């Protein structure tokens, strides 16, 4: 057991002595780390859109020069043509319907898929309800966990957006991005009065065959329909999603600065507290040195104090952020794509590392001052 554990009671009691000050600093650090994690979770969600097998090995075929899904209309029989192209393993026609095309914190996106394709094309684990019920019901819907949390939806409840009313047949868990979708039957969405879109779909998801080159296949697809009535624009799913939320990316980049500012804030806060703690105890540290405490020991005592304040605040803030993020299903979306606020172990780890680094950095100068202080002069200090 390291020797320094012996000194921990002294460090903790010193912090406890000024508990009001300690508590204020800890809560300041907690708030800052909470915001830091929130910003980080948006960043993670954004990365989630472009990462992984789905994003890289799936192409999205969309109508050319259209952005909002409600404006893209492709003939459904394009699917058969695409399926015959080399490098294509599977084609999934999708009808998209949503409540809002602009940037929103409450973007609800329905994806209508043919019943037989949904299970193979998506990796959904039901956490409530069952597949049988979904398959049986014409208006059945499988709701992503994030949407269910946001909207308070449970199995059996009815849910209406505009002209579309569905019955929740199940709630599913999947990747953070997926959990922001609501899946329905394709023909149900196509036949909904007002949408008036029998025979057309919004997009095709094209699953690439083993070894197929995404760029080449995308080019071949667009080539195919160049002279046709409706021209297509095909990209990998990752690129497609990144482009859809393009307007938000700048905002998110700005939010990053907010995250860095929070780190700076904790640094200033913890440093101030540690400087005060050292100035309060000039004589006490000189007494300890007289008893035989080395400069190194004094330095590490002050560092430990600073580290504890920063880490306790960090753990509280990070913990709260993870809880809130996990149970609120928050997301920001636009043009049919949601960026899920994603709480991950990696994010918590980053937060902790930041807290620790800030704690050390904040303690450095005061710890150095305390360690280098002249004993005799400090003993006279009042």
């Amino acid at each position: 057991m390291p020797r320094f554990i012996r000194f921990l009671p002294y460090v903790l009691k010193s912090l406890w002595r000024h508990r009001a000050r300690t508590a204020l600093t800890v809560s300041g650090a907690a708030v800052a780390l909470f915001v830091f994690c929130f910003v980080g979770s948006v960043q993670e969600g954004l990365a989630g859109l472009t990462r992984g097998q789905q994003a890289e090995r799936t192409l999205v075929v969309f109508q050319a020069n259209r952005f909002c899904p409600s404006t893209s209309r492709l003939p459904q029989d394009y699917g058969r043509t695409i399926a015959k192209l080399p490098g294509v393993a599977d084609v999934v026609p999708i009808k998209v319907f949503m409540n809002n095309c602009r940037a929103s914190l409450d973007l609800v996106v329905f994806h209508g898929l043919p019943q037989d394709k949904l299970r193979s094309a998506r990796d959904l684990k039901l956490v409530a309800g069952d597949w049988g019920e979904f398959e049986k019901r014409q208006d059945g819907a499988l709701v992503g966990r994030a949407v269910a949390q946001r909207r308070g939806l449970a199995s059996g409840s009815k849910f209406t957006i505009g002209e579309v009313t569905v019955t929740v047949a199940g709630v599913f868990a999947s990747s953070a991005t997926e959990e922001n979708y609501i899946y329905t039957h394709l023909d149900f969405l196509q036949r909904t009065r007002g949408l008036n879109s029998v025979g057309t779909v919004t997009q095709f998801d094209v699953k690439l065959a083993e070894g197929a080159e995404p760029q080449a296949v995308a080019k071949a697809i667009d080539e195919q329909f160049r002279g046709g009535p409706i021209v297509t624009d095909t990209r990998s799913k990752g690129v497609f999603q990144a482009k859809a939320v393009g307007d938000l990316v700048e905002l998110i980049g700005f939010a990053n600065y907010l995250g860095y500012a929070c780190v700076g804030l904790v640094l200033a806060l913890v440093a101030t507290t540690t400087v005060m703690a050292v100035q309060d105890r000039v004589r006490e540290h000189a007494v300890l040195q007289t008893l035989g405490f080395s400069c190194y020991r004094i330095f590490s005592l002050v560092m430990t104090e600073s580290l504890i304040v920063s880490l306790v605040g960090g753990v509280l803030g990070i913990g709260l952020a993870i809880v809130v993020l996990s149970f609120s299903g928050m997301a920001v979306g636009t043009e049919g794509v949601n960026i899920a606020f994603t709480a991950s172990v990696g994010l918590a780890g980053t937060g902790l590392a930041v807290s620790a680094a800030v704690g050390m950095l904040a303690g450095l100068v005061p710890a150095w001052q305390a360690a280098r202080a002249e004993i005799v002069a400090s003993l006279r200090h009042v």
Partner: protein
Amino acid sequence: MPLVEVRALTKEYSKGDQKITPLKDAHLDVERGDLVSLMGASGSGKSTLLNMIAGIDRPTTGNVVVDGTDITRMSRSKLAAWRAQHVGYIFQMHNLIPVLTAYENVEMPLLLLPLSSAERRKRIEIALDAVGLADRADHYPRQLSGGQEQRVGIARAIVADPAVVVGDEPTGDLDAESTEQILLLLQRLNKELGTTLIIVTHDPKTAAIARRRIRLEKGELVEAGAPILKRELQRA
């Protein structure tokens, strides 16, 4: 061989172009088990001398040898480790750590030594018992009287069983009754444990318990009863 040997010790402070020399070429031997009092006018350099013997201040020139070790040549961290093992320091204002109990205050110097918590406990109990505060172990400094606080301070100074214990006006802040108690305690420690004590004081009553009384005058040490000339002749 004397336990403490002060050799040609000089301490100079310069303030602007003015030079203050509280100690000039001071010599002093303290034998093991002795009880020495150090008197002198205010500002005569008593604390300065004591602090150099305790290894918390450094001379301008000269040496302090304690138990055969020249402490003036040690690095700062070596000196700290040396203090932990060899010196006990009794402050004028007890200087206890307010957030720690009497027990924990006395434990502080022991935390630096390679002792198990059981060994520490035994030593702390002996030290607190010696100063008559075994029943106050869990009290915080603010719950103790001035005299009791000083006794905890003494327990902290002796707990590591140091070669030499120094005190800088250990009764300077106390009323007559507490002073009496502390003096008795110091005498007992010296007689029963054989602790070598060097006590700075300006109180003749405190000086009276000493076997040897030394005065600091104009930077030089004068032995009471033995004029400095005689000592110099002895040394020569």
